[in-house]
């Protein structure tokens, strides 16, 4: 279960960010922001084969003592960042992947909505529900 989920646009501004412990949101915002650097580093690593060979799932971006940050980037350079609590029994990689997959799918649905202007913050309720399902229930 994620503690914070964020969707970052291509220009590196957040389209959607939500954390569970509402009180400490700023910390997670900062974490997500710093994780963007790691994401950039990863996606620039594969220079030759552009998006073709590059895998969307970036894996663990960096761990801290409190939590772990996972990244995922789409072919249109939209980044998904999931912050998971370290104390939580470490989720398997597959679970994280499936979470990203769900995020990507619902993000695609949001994009398909003609009333959604790319670049706007995501206010889709369906997307919200998917994210809520993935967030930690407690707190």
């Amino acid at each position, binding site marked *: 279960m994620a503690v914070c989920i964020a969707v970052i646009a291509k220009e590196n501004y957040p389209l959607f960010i939500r954390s569970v412990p509402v009180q400490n949101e700023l910390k997670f915002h900062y974490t997500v922001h710093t994780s963007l650097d790691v994401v950039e580093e990863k996606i620039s690593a*594969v220079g030759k084969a552009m998006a073709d060979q590059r895998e969307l799932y970036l894996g663990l971006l960096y761990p801290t003592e409190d939590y772990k940050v996972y990244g995922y980037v789409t072919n249109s350079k939209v980044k998904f960042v999931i912050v998971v609590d370290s104390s939580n029994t470490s989720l398997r990689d597959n679970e994280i992947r499936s979470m990203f*997959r769900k995020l990507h799918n619902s993000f695609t649905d949001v994009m398909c909505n003609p009333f959604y202007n790319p670049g706007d913050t995501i206010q889709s309720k369906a997307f919200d529900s998917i994210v809520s399902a993935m967030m930690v229930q407690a707190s």
Partner: protein
Amino acid sequence: MESLTLTDGEQKYYSDLFVYCDTDNTKKVASNGRVLDLFRAAQLPSEVVLQITELCGATRLGHFGRSQFYIALKLIAVAQSGLPLRVESLNSVKDLPLPRFVVAKNEQEARHTAMYPDSENQGSYQGVIPRPPGRGQVKKLSAHEVIQPCVPTVEPQLQPDTTSPVVSPHQSPPTSPHWRKHKRQASGGNIERQPVVVAGAVWTPFREAQAGPVVSGDGMWSANSPPPVQESWVSLKDAHPPSSSTLPAIHCSPVQENSSIRTVASATTTNETQRHSSGGYDDPWKITDEQRQYYINQFKTIQPDLNGFIPGSAAKEFFTKSKLPILELSHIWELSDFDKDGALTLDEFCAAFHLVVARKNSYDLPEKLPESLMPKLIDLDDSAEVPDQAPDVGYSGSPVEVTPNKSPSMPSLNQTWPDLNQGNEQWETFSERSSSSQTLTQFDSNIAPADPDTAIVHPVPIRMTPSKIHMQEMELKRTGSDHTHPTSPLMANPPDLSEETKLATSMKFVTVNSGDGYSSSDSYTSDQDPITSVVTRQRSHSGTSPEGLKVVAAPPPPPPRPHASHSRSSSLDMNRSFAAVPTGPQLAGVVAYPPAVPPRPLPTQTSGPHSGHRSDEGLAAHSSTSPQQIPEQPNFADFSQFQAFAASDQPSDDGEKHPESLPVEKSSEGAGPLRTVKSDNQEERAAATVNSAKGSIMAPPPKPVRRRLKSEDELQEEALPLKSNVIATVLAAQPSIPRSVGKDKKAIQASIRRNKETNTVLARLNSELQQQLKDLLEERISLEVQLEQLRPFSHL
């Protein structure tokens, strides 16, 4: 009659009533029957009704034209408000409440305020109107008040005349959801709003006056609500620029065409009953026939093909006209675009339209798509909804295939999504599985052994044996005693060899047949081919090998591929044969090889027998070798026998074995020890050492798969030298043959023939090895690329 000025609310109301009365669909004359019923419903004394009738001019005209009807209605309102009936009062009375018509069936006797034209409809609804249970007047009032502001916006939008017909059909649907909402929501503000919407301004005062007798008001409200809702709904359309204005018209036409108010009433009744019966069912979201027809017509304006899609941009444009906030439109889209394809099918469009209408009427949007709005998917593949299904959807309320009901029962929806997701996952897993190359290799490995010629394992070309035996016999016949000599050992040896390597056996035969030169070479090559094919995943070669064998006189089948061992063995043999045979001049050309090869023959020879598979490879080369070489191969296993033929046979044997050793990679395991053993036994053991070396090289990959890979590598590595070895062996065999035979002329001719065959074989072998080299290089490149790709992620 004096001109009649009606307020917008009145206009709408009257037009609705007129439509209701317009049973003949003349749009001009209201049937007297209906009108009279209506007037009776006004709960006015009959003489008042008569008076009104007379005043409006109907009596004079004999029928109720629209103007007469309107006047009559106004007079009714006047009368109901207690004002004296005067023609002049028509326009003088301001803020006259809308005429009320009591619907007999209505539970509520007293009609609140103006029962909208729905009164008639209400009558029809009666059964339906179920009553909005909790409608409290307070709510109504509040809603009323709330609605009021809406009304002004709505009213002006209402267009006279044409809207009336629209209103009626609209009434039912909005009503239902309205009611439903009302039931569900403690504060049915929305609902109230709707009814009020239309008559807002007029109603406000009226309602307040009616606050008391609320009970009936519920029914009336409900009855009223539909019309106002509808009107607002309609007005919604009207609000939009040109297209919207056409909407009501369009809607009107179909409505009128489809059914008069009766139909609507019946429909609404049905809806109502259904709603009532279902209790908590999602009635409010049902789409009536009229509505659906309206939606369909709207759909046609955008997309003529009813089975086609409306692209997202067009839909966006269309729904933006409803002037709902983008956020709500976005939510409506999410709900209605069921297949998430960015386009709306007819059903999806109807659902979206319905939601827009509802929202316009201040219905809260559901969190999930209501069942009744769920697009019917006969097949998940069939994305195009059939229009005729619409009514079913409207009334059945449950999609055929799509089980998930978003609002009524989310679980079902959730089920489908997980299913879809699972499908995706299944796809993913499937892809993952399919990506595994193990199956391919296993398949290859399975096939390889299946082909006796290509069998990696020792017992390779069993089936070669018979043909080889045949060839051997032929060889024997041709070559005569000398051949028989070598052949005999061959004959004797096969059983021994069969224990070890069938290939060896076959090779023996091949060698025996080498007397024919060509045939034996064929057999060799064919044997080699299978091995090669096994090694190189080239089944075709294996296929060819048996053919090669069978074709006695046919040119050698594709030469063994990567059979470095083969080439080596042949070359070694050749070398050995050259070294051993003083009569090198015959093989001058070939002699070139020998010097370089000397050591090889030994290993090749030693590995000869076991490289049963190799033997196939070496067969080609061996083919040119004397039959004696063949026997020598089996001799590997049986060194004593081999030694017997050591002198003359060895060279040829070496030559034979050398090619056989080529495929050793497959039999590398056995090859090593065998080679070493044989090398020990054989005299010209320069080759033996080489063979042993080869054996050691070959030995490593125990498994067939690995063998194959390694054999490929090794083969390629050894290919060139082996080829030379093959040539050498072949050449060596040739001189040995004549020597052994002793018949110079024949021997020379045979040797010449064999040389030619060898040449062709070697040439082919060369080409194949080149091909293998290319393949391996490509593999290497791909592996490097993969490695590079993986490298960045290895940083984690």
